[in-house]
């Protein structure tokens, strides 16, 4: 055959494919220009093409000829459904009952299956069988057939891939979103059962005749990875995350990525490789080959639908960094639902004001929806922990899922928690997340044969939980006792770790970080200064073992100096405290900035300046402390302005202004003080709106109120001041009387009483002042009886009450 003839025929054939039906004939005639041999060749190709097209109708797999087993397990084989990379899929029928129950039977090709992997396969199969969800093809059973090939018995889904379904039915974006919500929920269900799909793609989401999507092949990716010696997980380009492509083991965040990629594929009509990743989904629609035959108007309308919110949703789901993605499949679902519920009415979309208002409303609602999605997540996770508490964790340790439990605990403690931390009104949820993560960590640390690296990680996780519960560098949960328990647990683990066996520096660092945190809680919440001192001594010993040139050493030393300075203040050793605080400031400011720990360094620096100012205030003079307090205000205000999402930053900026204001009050500059306190009070509502039940926020609210009341009274606005303080007193009383109140609540009530007494006494209202002082004194006496009064209080608060009583109450 003439070579160029074939070439030319292939080329004309391709052009003919692109042409509309009625344009095809003229095109072929023109291209062949009377060359009969060429035209015959083109027609031969067209005929063969039609044959091939008929052989494969869109989406369906044809039953094949070839040997078919008659039975597998208890099932009679009815037909062959398809043939995939991992083996055959048959339709089986159970014929021992009154009616026939059809199932899908997936038989793994024996050549792909190593003998050693069989036990793993068996165990995994049982885990998968626990998944039960309307949108997941149920796994019923499994086993090994006569030829030694393992098989799975699954719910039979007669349907097509979700991409073919969406294209064939011409689904609008709203229907696509609805289907993807169902898929997200199915994936979420699996995640809660600690099963990651690991190979989500349109072909693994079948849509049945009823239009219900069903996710198939859950966990099959893992089965396959166990079936080959290299432990290689299959993955599908475009649907697997950058982390997976780099070879990382699958995590829930990878499934979220795949869900985003699938959503994009459905909206654009073609797979992820069809368009450049840099294009927004709405932009890709215009270039999609799948929509090439649509009118420009149709394409523009679809792009408009997708532009904005859906673009943003997909971008977030497919973020390159796992931590930038939705924290869970259910969060992606909730954003999709928000999009479905609050789309602007198209008839008015040209009205800019309307669009703007709609936008604001949608954003606001979305925050609320986001929070409720997180609530669902937490609730579901709670169920998961219960399940885990019931199962024998040690038995599972050898399984690969062990890694997933670790990654889940990490994911909860860092990704989910941090996200919730930035979401308003999520305190209860954050508490739950911490509790759930704790369940995982306990399970990990209780595993008898857990390797040192896992124990170390569990201890670090427990420290993190303790920080969430009572740490100073974040909005904590106010659970000091629970935090102490966790630190004790972490301490016990750290004692088990042989410094020689692992990286000795990190064991020492682990022990030091536990000790400084325990010291902080002992002095600040339990007021046990002796215990705090002992713990800091322990920490110093461990810090000395760490490589002095490392950043870890510098950070821990700063932490140690800060806590020592604060302890010095509690004990009334102000000169020593000043030295500690200055050393902390020196180290923290000399560190090279690193985004990884910038936040930690900032908060250490803030606490160091605060401790220094306090030491100067009590140790030298109120007037002398104005300078360090102004420094603190400068530092914290700048940070709060630069990090509006960081509520702790805001709170600390408020507290700095409060401290400066209180100092100015003390040196009789009430008007200057009022300016600072007004500025502080103006920031308080933002803080309380964000989290009304946060202990730290409430405390901040309290002290600003009290100081403003004094400043008002001293500026000649006495009644306003009394009203403010009375309000505060009511609050402090409620706090001190609630169940689970801490000694610090009692102390805070006593201090509030003393302040109200001062306000009255300073304004010559002894009759009101004296009973209030007596009340405050009683509370301090009670605390003293339990050895819960600090030297600081003895030196200032109590002494002042006694002096006042001596002067005003005879």
């Amino acid at each position, binding site marked *: 055959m003439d070579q160029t003839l074939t070439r030319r025929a292939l080329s004309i054939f391709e052009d003919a494919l692109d042409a509309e039906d009625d344009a095809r004939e003229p095109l072929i005639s023109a291209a062949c220009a009377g060359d009969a041999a060429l035209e015959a060749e083109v027609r031969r190709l067209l005929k063969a093409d039609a044959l091939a097209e008929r052989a494969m109708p869109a989406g369906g797999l044809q039953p094949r000829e070839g040997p078919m087993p008659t039975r597998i397990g208890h099932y009679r084989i009815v037909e062959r459904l398809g043939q995939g990379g991992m083996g055959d899929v048959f339709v089986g029928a159970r014929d021992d009952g009154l009616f026939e129950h059809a199932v899908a039977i997936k038989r793994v090709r024996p050549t792909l299956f190593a003998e050693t992997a069989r036990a793993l396969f068996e165990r995994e199969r049982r885990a998968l069988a626990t998944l039960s969800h309307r949108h997941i093809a149920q796994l019923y059973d499994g086993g090994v057939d006569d030829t030694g090939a393992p098989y799975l018995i699954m719910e039979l889904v007669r349907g097509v891939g979700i991409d073919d379904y969406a294209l064939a039915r011409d689904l609008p974006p709203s229907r696509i979103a609805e289907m993807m919500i169902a898929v997200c929920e199915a994936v979420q269900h699996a995640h809660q059962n600690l099963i990651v799909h690991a190979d989500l793609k349109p072909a693994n989401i079948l849509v049945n005749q009823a239009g219900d999507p069903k996710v198939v092949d859950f966990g099959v990716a893992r089965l396959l990875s166990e079936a080959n010696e290299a432990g290689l997980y299959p993955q599908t380009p475009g649907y697997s995350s950058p982390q997976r*492509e780099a070879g990382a083991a699958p995590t829930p965040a990878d499934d979220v990525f795949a869900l985003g990629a699938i959503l994009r594929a459905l909206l654009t009509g073609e797979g992820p490789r069809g368009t450049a990743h840099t294009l927004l989904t709405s932009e890709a629609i215009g270039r999609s080959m799948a929509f090439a035959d649509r009118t420009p108007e149709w394409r523009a309308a679809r792009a408009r639908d997708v532009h904005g919110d859906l673009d943003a949703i997909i971008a977030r789901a497919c973020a390159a960094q796992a931590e930038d993605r939705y924290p869970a499949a259910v969060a992606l679902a909730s954003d999709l639902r928000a999009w479905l519920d609050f789309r602007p009415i198209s008839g008015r979309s040209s009205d800019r004001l309307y669009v703007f208002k709609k936008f604001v409303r949608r954003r606001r609602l979305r925050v609320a929806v986001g929070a409720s999605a997180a609530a669902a997540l937490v609730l579901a996770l709670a169920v998961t922990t219960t399940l885990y508490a019931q199962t024998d964790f040690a038995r599972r340790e050898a399984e690969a899922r062990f890694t997933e439990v670790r990654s889940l605990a990490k994911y909860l403690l860092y990704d989910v928690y941090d996200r919730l931390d930035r979401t308003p009104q999520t305190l209860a949820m954050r508490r739950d997340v911490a509790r759930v993560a704790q369940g995982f960590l306990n399970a990990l640390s209780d595993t008898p044969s857990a390797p040192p690296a896992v124990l170390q990680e569990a201890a670090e996780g427990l420290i993190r939980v303790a920080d969430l519960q009572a740490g100073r560098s974040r909005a904590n949960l106010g659970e000091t006792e629970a935090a102490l328990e966790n630190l004790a647990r972490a301490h016990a683990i750290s004692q088990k770790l042989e410094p020689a066996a692992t990286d000795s520096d990190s064991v020492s660092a682990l022990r030091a970080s536990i000790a400084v945190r325990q010291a902080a809680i002992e002095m600040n919440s339990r007021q046990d200064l002796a215990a705090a001192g002992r713990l800091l001594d322990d920490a110093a010993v461990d810090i000395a073992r760490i490589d002095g040139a490392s950043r870890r050493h510098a950070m821990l030393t700063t932490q140690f100096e800060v806590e020592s300075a604060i302890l010095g203040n509690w004990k009334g050793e102000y000169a020593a405290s000043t030295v500690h605080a200055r050393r902390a400031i020196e180290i923290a400011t000399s560190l090279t900035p690193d985004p990884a720990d910038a936040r930690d360094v900032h908060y250490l620096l803030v606490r160091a300046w605060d401790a220094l100012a306090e030491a100067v205030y009590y140790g030298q003079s109120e007037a002398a402390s104005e300078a360090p307090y102004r420094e603190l205000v400068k530092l914290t205000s700048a940070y709060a302005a630069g990090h509006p999402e960081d509520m702790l930053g805001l709170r600390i900026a408020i507290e700095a202004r409060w401290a400066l204001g209180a100092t100015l009050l003390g040196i009789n500059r009430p008007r200057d003080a009022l300016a600072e306190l007004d500025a502080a009070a103006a920031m308080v509502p933002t803080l309380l709106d964000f989290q009304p039940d946060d202990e730290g926020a409430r405390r901040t609210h309290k002290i600003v109120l009290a100081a403003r009341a004094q400043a008002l009274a001293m500026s000649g606005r006495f009644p306003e001041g009394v009203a403010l303080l009375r309000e505060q007193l009511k609050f402090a009383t409620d706090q001190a009387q609630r169940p689970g109140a801490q000694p610090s609540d009692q102390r805070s009530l006593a201090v509030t009483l003393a302040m109200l007494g001062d306000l009255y006494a300073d304004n010559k209202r002894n009759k009101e002042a004296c009973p209030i002082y007596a009340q405050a004194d009683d509370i301090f006496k009670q605390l003293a009886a339990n050895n819960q009064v600090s030297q600081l209080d003895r030196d200032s608060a109590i002494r002042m009450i006694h002096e006042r009583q001596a002067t005003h109450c005879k």
Partner: protein
Amino acid sequence: MDSPDGQGQGGGSLAAARDALLRAHYDEFRKVAGRVLNGDAAALKIQPTDLAHEAVIRLSGLDRLDFKGRTHFLSLSARVMRQILIDEIRKMRAAKRSPPPVSTELPPELGAQSIDLEDLDRALQKLETVAPEYAKLVDQRYFAGLTLEEVAEIEGISVRTVKRQWRAARAWLVAELGPR
């Protein structure tokens, strides 16, 4: 076959890397091919992609190739894999007194029919001489098991173009192999 790898063009460094890999694993491929063909059945029916899959599973364990690397490698060695497979088939046929026919089920889009692998090889050799890029596409698709999207990515051409070429190559093969 004028060009030993059937690739025609190909960047220098990539080709060098491929050559090194192939040299290192040629024997491995042969063993895999032998194993795929090592059945006592009267007639062997095999999927050429089995070879590619097995090879990749082995290679990825040996070389820690990342995913992109694997796809590229597969694409580059698709032609060699076909050659190895055919060689092994010939060797096996020569060794056996009554050689079994070695057929393969063409993918459904090629008409879902059983054809002799050597016939397929002959057809592809013919296509190579007239339109090598189409033959290469069939190799990548059928012997290396790559998707059209993967081929598009590797070749740096649009999926649309690959789809058209695939349809053309498919039509040509069906016409060539089908009943006349």
